[in-house]
């Protein structure tokens, strides 16, 4: 038996590898191992105050730290009876949009694009595709500027606190975001067209099970109290533990999740498949012209889905800003309770993110975090197997390797966060 | 000195007319604090008793700035980029603070950065019939009144201003809109001025006995007070940053990624930091925090600068800034009690 290990999938965030077992020219097994060392974040927050939680959990992942912060805020606020004003809520949504934008841009231009154009890194693109590089740098800076305005800094901004913002974003800064967001629209449109022109090396015919939050207001948005599934079911986020079942595999430090005993996918592709009809503006136009049944089966469409979401995010900025600045500047709402338990969920760039906290006398008793990448890992393995079987006949190991990497990357796995989704069972019950 | 008066309502008009000189600045509100900031509108200005977080020194001796750039060929400064500014609403103690800094930066070899900013800044002082706050000690320091260091000085006497013209630049500013000034100062106006000052004198809540303090300071060199204070001091630097008469700075070189280019920049330093007086061989002339505090209070309460006078201008900022309550008032009190 020959065993190939593609150690350290490069150009994803964190540490992961794919191992492929091949026997007699046949793929026996493909596994995604997550090597990342343990941090036991959910355990670190036990015995801490809600404020401490908000300092700690964003550090699970640098790229989606605000999603973690937001999910934790929603859970903690619900548990402690805090209801924030509309302006606070909308500013937080704007913050989430900034993060999705910035994360997608990193994935599309820095991690995925070199694959499609055949380069080793995005920096290598500089000679022949300077415009793309400059666009990506500009867009990314804009995403970080959004993070800065709303959360206080580029990464791990502490400004969003329980009940509101330490310092509510200034009107002038919000208006600056509104104006600046429009500069990129045309260029992002051409990026969508570029991604639409790429040929995929693998074909898929089996439909994927998708899942995402169902925004209550009927818009294409990243928040909701219930989850829609492509099989037609819908359930409230409070029940997430029943539907998103976690389990451990012995070859990886990350937990996995199954829905009704089967793998499923969350993230941009899931959202576009489930909510795409709701897209408006230019993003809506691109959705209508590009969407096809293939999007239901082939994970490589994630790239296009993300590109459309980038456009959608840019188009959403002015609308949100206009709504925020019409409202009175909100203060910080103090917590009424010091005990309680609740779930908070947001659509992070890579998909649905759940945070659960149980607070007793002002301190955390237990915590559970389920990250999008954890939910995707099984499907990543599944689609790698399908691809592997198609490609093994080519008998080119290099092609096999690079394609498997490319598919893994399409899921945009944030492996550094997937390592932290281990559920903690100790809840101090026996102590 | 030429003294004029102005109707209360005319200041706004005069303020805008000074735009001809440069950017318009003054005390404005930023979140929970008041700062000297750019005032787009006259209504942004907080023209009432109260203190800014940092003194006016931040505009003349900025907390950090590039001194010059270098490349393989030469060292170059761009002093011509320093903007011209009018600052309306500078407190007397802050003007005294500038006078202290002038002694350091303008005498002997003038510091071109300070000099240029000083020249490009029109200082328009203001005083009210009330002290700025409860921790003002300017009366004890003799800095509640000021007769130099400004271009114009406004005494807010409730229904009108008395305006002192302190420099030729001040005179130029008046000429920008002479119609709003009057020079017929009658007796009632002067009486109002005297009355107002008397009223204010009664309202100061804090004082330091500066007749004896410099000597006591001198005699307390070996006092255990310094060690006690040193044990408490957080070494955070807050007192020196906010003090109008603290001038110390550090210098650091920065290189650019490309070879051979870089810049040298300056940022506020603080004598309370351990590293401040460290020399080769890790020898430190002021190893203990107590010794470092003694140096600082020596400057503030006894002798500083070429003329050897106390540097404290009584602004009270250190009183508000220090989290562990080490400031000119508490130190003075401790010294007086311990003797």
């Amino acid at each position, binding site marked *: 038996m020959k065993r190939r290990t593609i150690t350290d999938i*490069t150009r994803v965030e964190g540490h992961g590898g794919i191992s492929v077992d091949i026997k007699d020219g046949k793929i026996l097994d493909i596994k995604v191992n997550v090597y990342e060392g343990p941090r036991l974040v959910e355990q*670190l927050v036990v015995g801490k105050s809600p404020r401490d939680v908000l300092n700690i959990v964003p550090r699970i992942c*640098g790229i989606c730290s605000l999603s973690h912060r937001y999910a934790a805020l929603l859970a903690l606020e619900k548990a402690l009876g805090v209801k924030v004003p509309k302006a606070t809520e909308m500013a937080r949504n704007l913050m989430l949009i900034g993060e999705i934008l910035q994360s997608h841009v990193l994935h599309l231009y820095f991690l995925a694009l070199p694959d499609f154009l055949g380069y080793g890194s995005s920096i290598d693109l500089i000679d022949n595709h300077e415009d793309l590089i400059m666009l990506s740098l500009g867009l990314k800076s804009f995403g970080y500027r959004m993070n800065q305005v709303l959360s206080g800094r580029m990464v791990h901004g502490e400004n969003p606190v329980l009940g509101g913002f330490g310092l509510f974003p200034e009107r002038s800064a919000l208006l600056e975001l509104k104006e600046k967001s429009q500069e990129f629209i045309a260029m992002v449109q051409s990026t969508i067209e570029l991604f639409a022109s790429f040929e995929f090396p693998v074909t898929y015919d089996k439909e994927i099970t998708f899942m995402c939050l169902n925004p209550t207001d009927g818009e294409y948005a990243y928040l909701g109290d219930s989850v829609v599934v492509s099989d037609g079911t819908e359930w409230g986020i409070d029940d997430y533990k029943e539907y998103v079942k976690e389990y451990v595999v012995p070859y990886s430090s990350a937990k996995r999740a199954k829905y009704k005993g089967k793998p499923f996918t969350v993230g941009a592709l899931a959202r576009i498949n489930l909510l795409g009809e709701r897209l408006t503006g230019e993003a809506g136009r691109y959705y209508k012209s590009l969407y096809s049944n293939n999007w239901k089966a082939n994970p490589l469409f994630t790239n296009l889905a993300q590109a459309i979401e980038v456009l959608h995010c840019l188009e959403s900025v002015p609308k949100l800003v206009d709504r925020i600045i019409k409202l009175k500047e909100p203060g910080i709402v103090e917590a009424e309770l010091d005990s309680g338990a609740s779930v908070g969920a947001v659509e992070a760039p890579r998909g649905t993110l759940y945070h659960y906290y149980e607070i007793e006398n002002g301190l955390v008793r237990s915590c559970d975090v389920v990250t999008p990448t954890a939910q995707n890992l099984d499907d990543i393995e599944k689609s790698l197997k399908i691809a592997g079987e198609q490609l093994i006949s080519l008998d080119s190991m290099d092609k096999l390797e690079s394609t498997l990497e490319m598919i893994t990357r399409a899921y945009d796995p944030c492996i550094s966060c997937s390592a932290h989704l*281990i559920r903690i069972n100790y809840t101090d019950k026996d102590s | 000195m030429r003294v004029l008066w102005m109707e209360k309502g005319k200041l706004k008009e005069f303020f805008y007319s000074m735009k001809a000189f440069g950017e318009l600045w003054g005390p404005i509100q930023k979140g929970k604090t008041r700062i000297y900031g750019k005032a787009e509108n006259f209504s942004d200005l907080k023209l009432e008793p109260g203190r800014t*977080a*940092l003194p006016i020194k931040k505009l003349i001796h900025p907390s950090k700035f590039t001194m010059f750039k270098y490349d393989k060929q030469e060292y170059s400064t761009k002093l011509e980029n320093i903007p011209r500014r009018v600052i309306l609403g500078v407190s007397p103690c802050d003007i005294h603070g500038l006078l202290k800094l002038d002694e350091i930066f303008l005498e002997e070899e003038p510091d071109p950065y300070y000099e240029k900013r000083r020249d490009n800044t029109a200082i328009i002082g203001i005083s009210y019939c009330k002290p700025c706050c409860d921790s003002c000690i300017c009366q004890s320091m003799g800095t509640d009144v000021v007769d130099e260091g400004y271009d114009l000085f406004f005494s807010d006497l409730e229904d009108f201003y008395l305006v002192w013209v302190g420099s030729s630049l001040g005179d130029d500013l008046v000429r920008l809109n002479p119609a709003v000034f009057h020079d017929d100062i009658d007796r009632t106006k002067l009486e109002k001025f005297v009355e107002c000052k008397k009223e204010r004198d009664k309202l100061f809540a804090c004082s330091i006995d500066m007749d004896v303090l410099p000597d006591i300071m001198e005699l307390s060199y070996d006092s255990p007070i310094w060690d006690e204070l040193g044990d408490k001091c957080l070494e955070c630097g807050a007192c020196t940053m906010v003090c109008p008469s603290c001038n110390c700075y550090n210098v650091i070189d920065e*290189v650019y990624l490309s070879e051979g280019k870089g810049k040298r920049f300056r940022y506020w330093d603080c004598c309370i930091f351990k590293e401040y007086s460290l020399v080769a061989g890790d020898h430190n002339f002021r190893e203990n925090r107590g010794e470092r505090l003694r140096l600082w209070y020596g400057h503030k309460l006894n002798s500083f600068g070429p003329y050897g006078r106390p540097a404290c201008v009584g602004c009270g900022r250190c009183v508000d800034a220090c989290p562990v309550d080490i400031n000119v008032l508490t130190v003075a009190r401790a010294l007086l009690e311990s003797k």
Partner: protein
Amino acid sequence: MLNKKRIGIYSFTGCSGEQLVILECGKYLLKLYEVVDIVGFPMAQSKNTIMDLDIALLEGSITTESQLAELKEIRDSAKTLVALGTCACYGGIQSMKLGEGDWKKRFQEVYGADDKLYNKMKPMESKPCNEFVTIDYYIPGCPMDKGQFLHTISHIINDTPPHLYPFPVCTECKWKENDCLLNRGELCLGPLTRGGCGAVCPSHNIPCVGCWGPAEVTNMPSEYKLLLEKGYSQIEIFRNFRKFGGTPMVEKLKNMMEKLR
């Protein structure tokens, strides 16, 4: 430049924040690629090595045997080692319970009593890089600041010593003209925390949580007493000191308690 320096950027246990900061350096990143050979940067490029390095930039703390082995290999192959971010410099949040109770038991509470994964992963409690190898320069911060990164890396590339601020957060907080939170009764770690972030949090009315790690010279006993006076409990104060304090804080707390006894 005739001989371009060979640089590698490697990551251990952390959130990848530092690598993101590097990627956000924009035109300076392009410049960096111009003036040095980036031979290792797994997050951003496909071809990577750890051989013959002039400078290795390390992110994250060490939490498994294999990371430790890799760290040692990198130390052997690199002339200069730079720790990026609070995880690599001090251990990061994952070190906040360092030394508290039995770590293996904690691990098992999470992963189950079955030792299969434990034996495979060979994990250990998080420690910063300098617990195992010599580190030449430190750029703390959670995540580090772009400006401080560029300053340090430019100096190292040009063989001149970098200078990061030696003072605590309060100094910059004063430059920013904030109202002092400690004076308002908040549990602010500004006086104990290394400056360099620009006092971001106090500038947003949020007490500093210490993410730049402990400043070298501080007066911790005084801050501790002050916080007790303000009504915080010892547990609460220590919890905050340790949040980002990593290994140096363990030492500092021990010294402080001895002193106070």
